[in-house]
C-alpha cells in the first residue's frame, strides 16, 4: 500500500514537471519548490546523523579525542559567513581548504598532464595514433595566439578547428542521448511502475 501511494505521488510530480513543456504553470512551480525543499530536508538530517555525529560529536565528546578541537574550530569559523561584520573570519577555513587542494597538485599534474602527455608520445604506427597526434598538435597551435593564423600555419591551425568540431559533435550527440535517456527513464516509470503497461 505504501509503495502504491509512493508511486502515485511520484507519477503526479513527474506529470507536474512535464507540464512545463506546455507552459509555465502552478503545478510545475509546486513540484519544483517541493523538490528543492525535500532535497534539503533529506540532506541536512542525513548529514547531521552520518557526518557530524560519528565524525565530530562522538569522537570529541564521547571518546575524548581532544585533538579534534582544532578542525572543529576551523570548521566552526565558516558560520561567520552569516555575519556582515565578521564574515572575513570565514576566509581562514577557506584558506585551509585551498591548502588541501594544493596537496593534490603534484598528483594531479602527474595524472592529468604528464601521463596524458606520455600517451601522446607513442610510435606513429597506426592511423588512430597519427590522428591523435595531428589533432593534439593542430589544436594546441590553434590556441597559440602570438603568431597570426595566416598562410600554411593558418591552414594547419584550421585543421585543429575541424578536430574540435568533431569533438563538440560527439559531445552534443552524447548530450542528446543523455537527455533522452532521462526522458526514457521517466516514461518507463510512468508506463511500467505506474500504469503497468510494460513489464
Amino acid at each position, binding site marked *: 500500500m505504501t509503495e502504491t501511494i509512493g508511486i502515485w505521488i511520484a507519477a503526479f510530480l513527474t506529470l507536474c514537471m512535464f507540464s512545463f513543456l506546455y507552459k509555465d504553470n502552478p503545478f510545475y512551480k509546486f513540484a519544483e519548490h517541493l523538490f528543492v525543499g525535500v532535497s534539503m530536508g533529506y540532506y541536512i538530517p542525513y548529514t547531521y546523523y552520518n557526518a557530524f555525529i560519528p565524525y565530530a560529536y562522538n569522537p570529541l565528546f564521547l571518546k575524548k579525542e581532544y585533538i579534534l578541537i582544532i578542525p572543529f574550530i576551523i570548521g566552526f569559523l565558516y558560520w561567520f559567513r552569516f555575519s556582515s561584520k565578521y564574515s572575513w573570519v570565514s576566509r581562514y577555513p577557506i584558506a585551509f581548504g585551498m591548502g588541501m587542494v594544493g596537496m593534490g597538485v603534484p598528483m594531479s599534474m602527474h595524472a592529468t598532464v604528464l601521463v596524458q602527455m606520455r600517451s601522446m608520445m607513442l610510435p606513429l604506427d597506426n592511423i588512430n595514433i597519427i590522428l591523435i597526434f595531428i589533432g593534439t598538435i593542430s589544436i594546441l597551435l590553434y590556441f597559440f595566439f602570438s603568431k597570426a593564423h595566416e598562410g600554411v600555419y593558418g591552414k594547419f591551425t584550421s585543421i585543429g578547428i575541424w578536430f574540435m568540431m568533431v569533438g563538440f559533435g560527439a559531445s552534443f550527440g552524447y548530450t542528446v542521448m543523455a537527455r533522452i535517456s532521462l526522458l*526514457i527513464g521517466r516514461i518507463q516509470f510512468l508506463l511500467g511502475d505506474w500504469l503497468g503497461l510494460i513489464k
Partner: protein
Amino acid sequence: MKFADRIQKVDRRIIYVILLLAVVLPLVFRLGFKTYTTTPVEDLYRHIDAAAGKDDLAILMDFTHDPGVLPELYPMDLAILRHCFERNIKVFTISFLPQGAAIIQMALSEVKEDYPNIEANVDYCNFGFKPWSTKLPIMLGMGDDIAEAVETNSEGLKLENLPIMQNMKNYDNIQVVVEISGSSMGQFWVIYARAKFGVDVAVGLTAVMAADVYPYLQSGQFVGSLGGLKGAAEYEQLVDIFAMNGLEFSKKKARNMAWVEAQYEELPELAQLYKYNKARIGMDAQAIVHVLIIFFIILGNIGYFLDRRAQKKSM
C-alpha cells in the same frame, strides 16, 4: 506561409508530442534492436570477470550519483552487481553522497532477491555513506589498510571483524575501482588512488560526460568505461551472454552477432526479468528518437537554406 517558413516555425509542442510518441511506442511494442558491444565496456567486463572466484580480490563500486541520473546509471549498478553475484566476485560498495547510500541499498536489495545464497559481509560488503570530506583520507588510507581507513560498514560493524575482510588488506586486493558517477568522472580515484597506489580505475558515467573519458582510456588511466544508457545496455548484454551462461569472456564471440543471438535463446528465466533488460529496452526508444532528431536537424537545415535562397532572390 511558404513551406520553408512553415518548417522553420513549427510549434515546439508539436515536436514534443512527436518525441513522446517516439519514446512511448518502442517501449510498449518492443523492437528488439541489437546491441553491439564496444571496447571500453568489454574491457571493464573482462577486468571485473578476472576476479571471479578469488577470495583475495574484490571490486570497489563508488556510487557518486543521485536519483536525478538513475535512468542512465541504475541499469549499470544492477548489471555490475549481477555480474559479481553470478560469477562469485567479492564486491565493496561505498558512497560519498547521502543520496548515493540509499541507491546502494536499493540496488543491492533488488539484485540480492534473485541470489538468495549471497550473504552480506561475506560475499559483499556495503561500506555505506561516508562524508565527502573523508573521501581523500579514506582513498589514501585504503592504500595501507582498508579496514582501518573505512572503519565500519553501513550497519556500523567494524570491518576488521567481517568474514569478507579476512583476505583483504589494501589496494592489492582491489581488482578495480568502478566509480558510477553523475558528476566527478572518476578524477579523484585517478589522481590519488591510481597515481599513488597504481589501482585500476574504471567509470560508469552519464552520456554527457562520456566523450571526456576517451583521453584517459587512450592513456590507460581508465581500464574501461560505461557511457550512458548505451554503455549500460552493452554491459547488460555481456552479463547475459557470458556470466548467465557460465562462459568465460571472449571478445571475438562478443562481436559475433550470430553467436550472441544464439546465446540469447538459451538464457535462464532470471536474465529475462524486465529490471535486467531495462537499458536495452530503453535503447530501442533511444534509437528511434535519434533518427527523429537527425530528421528534424535535416528538415531545419532545408528550411534554413530555402529561406536564405528566397531572401537572396528578393534582394
